[in-house]
């Protein structure tokens, strides 16, 4: 569904991504793992149009995405859950969700989408009148994912969903991701938490200093000696 080929990007004179190619097939969950500074967040920002692509091509179901501004990318069906969630803290949970359905296509189906998100995350319904900034870390992640789902995406980008969360909550968040997968949504996750992410994705890529170093199914990577030593501490 999403296909990147030889993508390069960066900030100013500083290049972060070098010839990154990856495929996210429909209905699959794909992970991109790597340490801090490997370029994972940059990759997400490139896909969602927040920073421009320097070279290479990027397509969603065969349609080129390069050069589209962020809001047009959302209209194409890609929703981005940014790192550290980036909720609108002073707006209530429901206002955050409503704003998630900002694009016209989603606005028309607002009520149905809201029901779907509340069914998926009943906790959000309980807290719907509360300012998003007062939620716990796990609930905020729920709200951020819910906000992204409100745009009725084909592809969900999750940037570091475990960042800044307690280990117990991290497990809950991955449980949520499993639940979303059950909905048949295609998902691309970038994560440092290699162990956990390999348990929920079908396939994964290893990103190191801006380049793809390894690729394979989740089971292959779990068994890979280099990954076990460098990223799982085994």
């Amino acid at each position, binding site marked *: 569904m999403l296909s990147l080929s030889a993508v390069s990007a960066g900030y100013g004179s500083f290049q972060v991504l070098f010839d990154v190619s990856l495929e996210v097939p429909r209905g699959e969950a794909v992970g991109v793992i790597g340490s801090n500074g490997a370029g994972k967040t940059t990759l997400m920002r490139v896909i*969602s*149009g*927040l920073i421009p692509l320097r070279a290479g091509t990027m397509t969603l179901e065969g349609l080129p995405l390069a050069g589209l*501004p*962020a*809001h047009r990318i*959302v*209209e194409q069906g890609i*929703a*981005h859950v*940014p790192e550290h969630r*980036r*909720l*609108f*803290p*002073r*707006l209530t949970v429901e*206002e955050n969700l*409503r*704003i*998630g359905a*900002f*694009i016209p296509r*989603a*606005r028309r189906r607002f009520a149905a989408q809201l029901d779907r998100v509340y069914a998926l995350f009943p906790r959000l319904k309980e807290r719907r009148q509360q300012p998003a900034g007062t939620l716990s870390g796990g609930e905020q992640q729920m709200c951020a994912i819910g*906000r*992204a789902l*409100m*745009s009725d995406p084909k592809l969900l980008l999750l940037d570091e969903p475990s960042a800044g969360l307690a280990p117990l909550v991290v497990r809950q968040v991955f449980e949520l991701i499993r639940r979303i997968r059950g909905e048949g949504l295609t998902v691309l996750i970038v994560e440092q938490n290699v162990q956990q992410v390999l348990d929920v994705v079908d396939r994964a890529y290893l990103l190191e200093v801006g380049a793809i170093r390894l690729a394979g199914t989740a089971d292959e990577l779990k068994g890979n000696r280099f990954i076990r030593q460098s990223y799982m501490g085994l």
Partner: protein
Amino acid sequence: MSRLGASAFALAALAAVLPAAGPAYFLHLLIQILIWASVYTAWALMGRFGFVSFGHGAFVGVGAYVPALLWNYFGLTPWVGIPAGIALAILVAVVIGYPCFRLRVVGHYFALVTLALSQVVLLTLVAAREITGGSLGFTPKAAGHSWYALQFPEKTYFYVIALMLWLLALSVWRWIDGGINREALEAISEDEDAAAAIGIDVLREKLRITVLSAALTALGGAIYGQYMMYLNPESVSGIAVSLQIVFAAIAGGVYSLLGPTVGALLTISLTEGLRVWFGVTFIGAANTIYGALLVLCIIFMPQGIVGTLRRAMAARAPKAAAAD
């Protein structure tokens, strides 16, 4: 919200009967307050979302000068001149706003760019002395009582015009409050990247509110010029006017419909009161006290006067309910 609407209506009704009550000077003050309240409200349309412009003096100046110049040199009626002034103000807003929003010039940097803008308009008006009269000011040709020239020696006419302008400004505010764009703007003001990532066209939303704010400000400037029948670069453009707009709107409260109006009421009656009180005996004292009061307002009431009052009322209400 409906309480706000009701209080606005009550204020409007009060305002409608006021002019019959006082002397001409009183009416003159009231007209000024209404015109500036509209301008401050126009500024707060964007100011309340954290887009702090120090350049609205530019729009007042453009709005005031364009119809006056067209009238004097080409005999063009202000009915055409005022829209022309608004159009030019919109053009200026786009020329400044587009690159700023595109290049993510926000916060202090945006304030600085707009600060420069207001000074550019002032200096242009001063430099084009042959046309605008420079620092000596500019007087539209008098036409007596004329709808065509939009000139009325009787103040009651301008009182009604100013009242309508003010109601228009409040309606625009309410209109924005009711739409999905308010939420989009709030989202942008909290986090531009996150807003873009959920499909909000940040550039377009910011440009739209800026254009609306500039147009309404220019209309206010135009009415002010028509009423005063004398324009001076210092009094309708430049940093002084821009600062006056920012301070008064913030002092009154930018998060409430009537905040900027209260700001206008306060600052104009304060300026006039101090001016009358001190007269020529103690030059500068009036301005000093004015400045000190504004500083205190902003430090101790960051929500503005109306915001602080509303909060105090909200804090008392539950207690009263509990006592019942």
